[in-house]
């Protein structure tokens, strides 16, 4: 297993700041934007979510830009367990996957039996991917073994479904803790590690993502395992999403530049990316009213 080690906050932020200054133009920009669309987990996680809302989101996920048939579909639609069956039906045959949050999302402050049952239910309802939360209470109290055991149990309950482990980095306080939680989640069997629930601020940031990417790289160098990464929350603009791709490209390389290894958890990002794609292709900005809100 990779060395826990330390993370220096100042230098980490300096490095991510430097990578964010990469200037991505023309063909490489278009290629990046296309990739971003394919990496999006289009997400709705509201108490007010209904089948109607999810239907609209699924339609958007499969065909993000009705005017441009060449626009790719997104990676997945991410919903609460109660809406999984509905999303699955809507997305049938499209290749767009159904992701469900589970394990007492967003706080994780429930008995582990309930959290495991929650994950199992999501899979039984048809989720291809489960986005679990770690128990930050246990983690911050230093009960790392317990956090590890919980992830292992959820991993088992998920069966073949893909497991993304949300660290909720905004609650962990230091990059050292983020690195430790990342290594712990990967050791326990995470397919992806994910920054945030989207319910806590700060959610995804460039430095915290870089910190997690470096942990993923260390696990890869030590064991050969290739764990995926999902920043979620707070990524609203195409320009930001390209900065994330630069981080991935220069930390992990081309093998991670795929929806199988990198996702964006976002909702409003998609339209900004579509708008930028149209701008790249036509040379003019169009009104946001030309892009559907779902």
């Amino acid at each position: 297993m990779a060395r826990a080690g330390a993370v220096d906050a100042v230098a980490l932020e300096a490095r991510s700041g430097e990578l964010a200054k990469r200037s991505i133009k023309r063909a490489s920009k278009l290629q990046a934007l296309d990739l971003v669309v394919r990496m999006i987990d289009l997400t709705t996680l509201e108490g007010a979510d209904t089948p109607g809302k999810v239907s609209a989101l699924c339609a958007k996920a499969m065909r993000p830009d009705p005017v441009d048939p060449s626009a790719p579909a997104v990676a997945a639609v991410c919903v609460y367990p109660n809406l999984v069956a509905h999303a699955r039906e809507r997305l049938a045959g499209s290749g767009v996957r159904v992701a469900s949050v589970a394990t007492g999302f967003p706080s994780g402050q429930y008995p582990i039996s309930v959290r495991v049952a929650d994950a199992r239910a999501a899979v039984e309802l048809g989720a291809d991917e489960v986005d679990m939360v770690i128990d930050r209470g246990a983690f911050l109290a230093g009960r790392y073994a317990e956090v590890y055991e919980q992830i292992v149990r959820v991993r088992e309950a998920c069966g073949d479904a893909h497991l993304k482990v949300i660290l909720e980095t905004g609650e962990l306080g230091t990059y050292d803790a983020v690195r430790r939680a990342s290594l712990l989640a990967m050791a326990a069997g995470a397919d992806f590690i994910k920054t945030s629930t989207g319910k806590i601020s700060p959610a995804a940031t460039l430095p915290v993502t870089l910190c997690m990417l470096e942990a993923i790289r260390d696990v890869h160098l030590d064991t050969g395992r290739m764990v995926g990464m999902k920043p979620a929350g707070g990524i609203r603009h195409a320009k930001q999403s390209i900065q994330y791709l630069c981080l991935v490209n220069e930390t992990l390389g081309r093998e991670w530049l795929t929806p199988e290894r990198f996702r964006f958890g976002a909702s409003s990002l998609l339209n900004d990316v579509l708008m930028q794609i149209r701008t790249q292709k036509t040379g003019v900005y169009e009104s946001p009213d030309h892009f559907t809100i779902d």
Partner: protein
Amino acid sequence: MDELEQRPQGTDWLYAPAPESREIVHFQERYGLFIGGETVEPRSGEWFPTLSPASEEPLAEVAQGGADDVALAVEAARGAFPEWSSGKPASRAKYLFRIARILQERSRELAVAESLDGGKPIKESRDVDLPLAAAHFFYHAGWADKLEYAFPNRRPQSLGVAAQIIPWNFPLLMLAWKVAPALACGNTVVLKPAETTPLTALLFADVCRQAELPPGTVNIVTGDGSTGEALVRQEGIDKVAFTGSTEVGKAIQRELAGRAVPHTLELGGKAANIVFDDAAIDQAVEGIVNGIYFNQGHVCCAGSRLLVQESIAEPLVARLKRRLSTLRVGDPLDKNTDVGAINSRAQLDRIRELVASGEAEGAELYQPPCDLPERGYWFPPTVFTNVAQSFRIAQEEIFGPVLSVMTFRTPSEAIEKANNTAYGLSAGVWTEKGSRILWMAERLRAGVVWANTFNRFDPASPFGGYKESGFGREGGRHGLEAYLRFDG
């Protein structure tokens, strides 16, 4: 997981060229000398071209200043001195503020000029050289009318004419390091820019005009080494400030022996970047990269020796090599370039010669695969492992993108090896343990010790060397002292 493994495994994503436009800079075909506020032709009648090291294309012709030209420049500076030194200190501050503001306003133009003439990546000239140059003028503008408070009861007085000779690695920034404190302390200046990088200094002459700096306060005489030599020999100078090689520094000191001309020398270095096993590894790797590949390693305080604790040497060097493969070497004007061109043919030859000596002495060379442009002067980022303390690459300043890696076992051994050099300009310490940082800093014989960072500069922080790295400090209150005499 099986299904996943069969999916396509990512795509190559190449960054399209993103060149900064050079339209913003208009070089004249020829630049004369800047003396007494006027552009004058050299008495020598000689000119020489300055090249872009990235393409070997001539950018402009500049004057080869001779002894006569130097004498005129010193005379002009002498003429301007009484008024400049006796005027209201707040008025000097006003000019320095003006210059700082103009540098900011013209920063894109000056950054492009710096990258064209010197070969450094635009992201460095844009984000480091220019902001720092402006910061030095702002900082010293603040001191101009507060010298009595900087040195209470010592009655600080201006020296007179400062002869300043600057290197080619940070042309405009070194100009700022020299000119700003000199002017703030009421001195006038004759500046000799480096032979291979005179253009931003000549653009600075225009900045002085724009700021309506009184004629003769700053004079700029371009030329080769002989021009600098003439300047140091010239009667009527009251101070010499030099940044450059130890060899030339020694020659200057010999020349000044027996003359009452105070001088400060900022010379070479062979800094140790010392990484302990508890350090934040990825950030240490970044610091090592920044320490030696920043500005192609053309940095006197570059972290050219990596001393790494043996227990983490293997993973650290593996990560370092991996990181090197992501460095983008090429067109200095491309915004994504990390490592630009070597400043001159002569410097490239020197780097090649020292690298060959490292291989011959038995060090193991690593260079990441990278396509270097056909024209121009280029050298790939290079790491030597298995380096012994006795190898030339561990002792001599290479002044290029070449790192020598050595190991140590204990803090005492790290100190011993770090100090075992003729130089003593800077050092870096990487550890999570605060007490160890202080323990190391007390024992390192270096003018600057960085902790968990490297190559950070601030006008408020004094910079200078121990041993053959020279003497005197630049920046901060200490830096002012070099441009004053004290009657109190």
